[in-house]
C-alpha cells in the first residue's frame, strides 16, 4: 500500500550537540578542543633544541595488548555486540593465517593485533610463518618490486627457488583448519595443500598494488591465485582480473596502538620541546620515510610558498635515512631544499618512535601527505583519526580516505599544496570540520574493529553460515 505524501517535520536537523547510540558521546572528541600546553622553552631554547633534538635511543617498553572490550568507548557497545554475534556464529570453526615474517612490516603488525582479538572472540586463529634461505627472500623481494612494476629478469632457476621453498614449507606445515588465509605472494603456492580438510576454504590476501605488475611474474603467480576461493585487496585500483571473487578490505589502524592511542597533552608538549617545535605557532607536518615518492622536497617548496602569507613551521619526521642508502640521499636533498630555514624541522627518527610520532601528529595544525605514489597511505589514516585536516596527493589509496573538501584536501601539485596550507590556516572552522569528518570516516571504515568484522563476515559467507540478504 503506497504511503501518503510526506509532511514536513518540525525537528531541528542542525541540533547535533548531543550524540546518541554509537559511538556514544564520542563525536565531540577533537584535538582542536584540547587546551594546548605551551612550550617551556623560549625562542633561543627552541632553536637550540632544533639543532640537537632529543631522540630516544632505546625502544620503550611495549604496552599490554588491548582486549576486545577496550574498543567499546571508541566504536560503541552496539558495534562490539554485532561483531561478537558474528563471531558466535563461527564457534567451532578454525582459521590459519600464513605470511612470510613474524616481525617488521605492515602485515606482521596487523596480524600481531588481529589474531589475539580473534582468539579472544573464540574463533581459534593460528599464525604460521614460512621459512626460507636468503636465496628465497631475494627472489621474493625481486617479485615484490616486479609486481610494483619494476623491470625483472624472471628465469626458470628463480621460479624453481620460489616453488621449492613453498614445497618445503608445505611439507612442514599442516592445514586442518576450516579457513586458510595466505598473505601476499611469498607463500602463494601453499594452495597445493588445499583439501586437507573437507569443505575447507582458502583465501589469498594481497597487500600490494598489482595495478601495473611485471607481466611475467604475475603470469607465474596467477595460476596459483586462481585456485583460491576468494581474494582480498586493499583497493579496487590494486586488483588484477582473476577468476575468483575479489573482496575489498581496507587496511586499518589500531586506535589503541602507541601510534594512535590518546596521549596526554603534557606528553605532547614534552615531545615538542624535545624536538624544538614551537607550540605557539601553526605546525605543518609530514610523517614519512625519506623517500622521493613521498615528495618531501615538494613539501618544503609548498611550505616556502605558503610561508610568504601565513606564519607556520614545517616538521618533516620519518625514518629510513639510517638503514637505507637512498634514504640518506633523500634526507640530504631535503636539507638542501630547506636551505637552513630555522622553521623547517627535519627529524630522522628511529623505528621505535611511534609514541613521539603520535605526539607530533597531535600537535600539528595540518598534516600533509604529498605522495607521488602511495600504497594505501596509513599515515593519512592516522592523521584523520586524530581529527587533523589533511592535505594529500591524489594517488593510490589516498582518495579513498581523503574525500576532497569533505574529509580533507586532495592536491596534484606543489602550488596546490601551498594554496591549501594558506586556506586551511586562515579558515580554521572549515579545517576543523574536515578533521571531524575525517575522524568519523576512519571510525566507520579503517579501524581494526571494522577489519575484524570483515574477516568474520568473509568466513561466514565462505563457510555458508551467513544469513545473506539479496539486493532487491
Amino acid at each position, binding site marked *: *500500500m*503506497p*504511503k*501518503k505524501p*510526506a*509532511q*514536513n*517535520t518540525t*525537528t531541528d*536537523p542542525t*541540533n*547535533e550537540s*548531543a*550524540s*546518541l*547510540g*554509537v559511538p556514544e558521546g564520542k*563525536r565531540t572528541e577533537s584535538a582542536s578542543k584540547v587546551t594546548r600546553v605551551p612550550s617551556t622553552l623560549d625562542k633561543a631554547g627552541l632553536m637550540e633544541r632544533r639543532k640537537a633534538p632529543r631522540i630516544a635511543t632505546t625502544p620503550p617498553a611495549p604496552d599490554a595488548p588491548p582486549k576486545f572490550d577496550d574498543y567499546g568507548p571508541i566504536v*560503541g557497545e*552496539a*558495534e562490539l*555486540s*554485532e561483531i561478537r*554475534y*558474528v563471531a558466535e556464529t563461527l564457534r567451532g570453526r578454525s582459521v590459519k593465517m600464513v605470511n612470510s615474517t613474524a616481525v617488521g612490516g605492515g602485515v606482521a603488525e596487523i596480524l600481531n593485533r588481529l589474531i589475539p582479538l580473534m582468539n579472544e572472540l573464540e574463533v581459534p586463529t593460528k599464525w604460521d610463518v614460512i621459512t626460507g634461505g636468503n636465496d628465497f627472500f631475494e627472489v621474493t623481494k625481486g617479485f615484490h618490486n616486479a609486481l610494483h612494476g619494476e623491470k625483472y629478469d624472471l628465469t626458470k632457476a628463480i621460479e624453481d627457488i620460489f616453488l621449492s621453498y613453498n614445497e618445503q614449507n608445505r611439507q612442514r606445515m599442516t592445514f586442518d583448519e576450516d579457513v586458510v588465509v595466505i598473505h601476499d605472494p611469498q607463500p602463494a603456492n601453499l594452495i597445493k595443500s588445499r583439501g586437507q580438510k573437507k569443505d575447507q576454504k582458502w583465501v589469498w590476501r594481497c597487500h600490494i598494488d598489482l595495478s601495473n605488475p611485471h607481466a611475467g611474474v604475475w603470469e607465474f603467480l596467477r595460476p596459483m591465485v586462481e585456485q583460491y576461493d576468494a581474494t582480498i*585487496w586493499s583497493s*579496487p*585500483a590494486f*586488483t588484477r*582480473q582473476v577468476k575468483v*571473487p*575479489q*573482496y*575489498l578490505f581496507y587496511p586499518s589502524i589500531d586506535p589503541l596502538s602507541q601510534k594512535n592511542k590518546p596521549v596526554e597533552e603534557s606528553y605532547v608538549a614534552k615531545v615538542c620541546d624535545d624536538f624544538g617545535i614551537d607550540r605557539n605557532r601553526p605546525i605543518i607536518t609530514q610523517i614519512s620515510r625519506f623517500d622521493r615518492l613521498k615528495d618531501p622536497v615538494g613539501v618544503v617548496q609548498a611550505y616556502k610558498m605558503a610561508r610568504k602569507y601565513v606564519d607556520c613551521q614545517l616538521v618533516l619526521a620519518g625514518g629510513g635515512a639510517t638503514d637505507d642508502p637512498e634514504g640518506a640521499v633523500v634526507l640530504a636533498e631535503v636539507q638542501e631544499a630547506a636551505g637552513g630555514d630555522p622553521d623547517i624541522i627535519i627529524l630522522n627518527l628511529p623505528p621505535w618512535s611511534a609514541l613521539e610520532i603520535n605526539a607530533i601528529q597531535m600537535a600539528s595544525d595540518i598534516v600533509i601527505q604529498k605522495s607521488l605514489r602511495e600504497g594505501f597511505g596509513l599515515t593519512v589514516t592516522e592523521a584523520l583519526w586524530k581529527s587533523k585536516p589533511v592535505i594529500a596527493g*591524489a594517488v593510490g589509496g589516498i*582518495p579513498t580516505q581523503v*574525500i*576532497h*573538501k*569533505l574529509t580533507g584536501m586532495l592536491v596534484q601539485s606543489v602550488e596546490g599544496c601551498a594554496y591549501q596550507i594558506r586556506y586551511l590556516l586562515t579558515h580554521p572552522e572549515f579545517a576543523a570540520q574536515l578533521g*571531524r*569528518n575525517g575522524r*568519523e*570516516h576512519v*571510525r*566507520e*571504515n579503517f579501524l581494526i574493529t571494522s577489519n575484524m*568484522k*570483515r574477516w568474520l*563476515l*568473509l568466513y*561466514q*559467507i565462505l563457510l555458508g553460515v*551467513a*544469513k*545473506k*540478504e*539479496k*539486493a*532487491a
Partner: protein
Amino acid sequence: MVATQSKQSNTLTAKKEFVFNSAAYLLRIGTERARSLKELLEGLRVVPDSSIFQHMFQTLAEHHYIREGFSNDFAHWAFFSCNETGLAERLAGIDVREYTSIKDMRQQIILVIEEYLKKNTASADRQALETFYFCSSDTVVIPTTFKARSLEEFTEGLRRVSLHSIHYHFINARLRIKLNSNDFSQWLEEELGLNDLADKFEAIDIYTSTLDGVRRQMVKLAESESGNARKAA
C-alpha cells in the same frame, strides 16, 4: 485526531514486536570499471543489482557522518573525477527513498546520463581523472538484542542500536518491503496506529543530516509523542 493519538500512545502495546536488526556488508570488487561517462553507462547496464545497491544505498552508510555534498557514488564521481557539475547535480537528485526496486532506480540513473550525454556529446569519451570501479556488497543480517512492543521500548531501541541498524531499517527497508516507507514507520502505523508519527519519521531528510542526526530526530519525535501523551493524560 493528534491529541487522541497522543493521549493513547504511552499505553499502546503492539501485537507484533519490533525486532531491531542490523546489517553488515562485505564489499566485492566487480569486473566492470569506467574511465569515461560512456563506460559508466555501459557498466550501469550490465552490473548486478547488488552493485547499484552498493553505490546508491550502501554508500550512505559508509559516509553517514557527512551532512552535505555526498549523496551517491555516481554523482560524486561525475563531479570530482569528470568535472560534470550538471550531471552530478542530477544524479545527486536521485533520492533512494523514491524507489522500491533496484530495477527502477537503475533505469533512472541510465536515463539521466543518456539525456545528459545527448546534450553534451563531447563529455561521453572524455577521460576521467580517476577510474570508477563498480563494487557490490554481500549483505549479512545481524540480529540485535533490542525489541519493542511499546513506544517507550521502541524509543530506547532507537537510542541504543548501531547506526548500521538505523540504516538497515530506515533506508534499505524500501527494497525489502517494496513500499515508499521504512520499517519504523510501518511498525508505528500498523502496530501502534501512530500514523502522524510514522509520517514524520518518513519525512526526515536523510541527505541533509548525518545518520546520527537522523537518529536524533527520530528519538526527539518519539519523545515528543510520548510527552504530548503524558500532557494529554
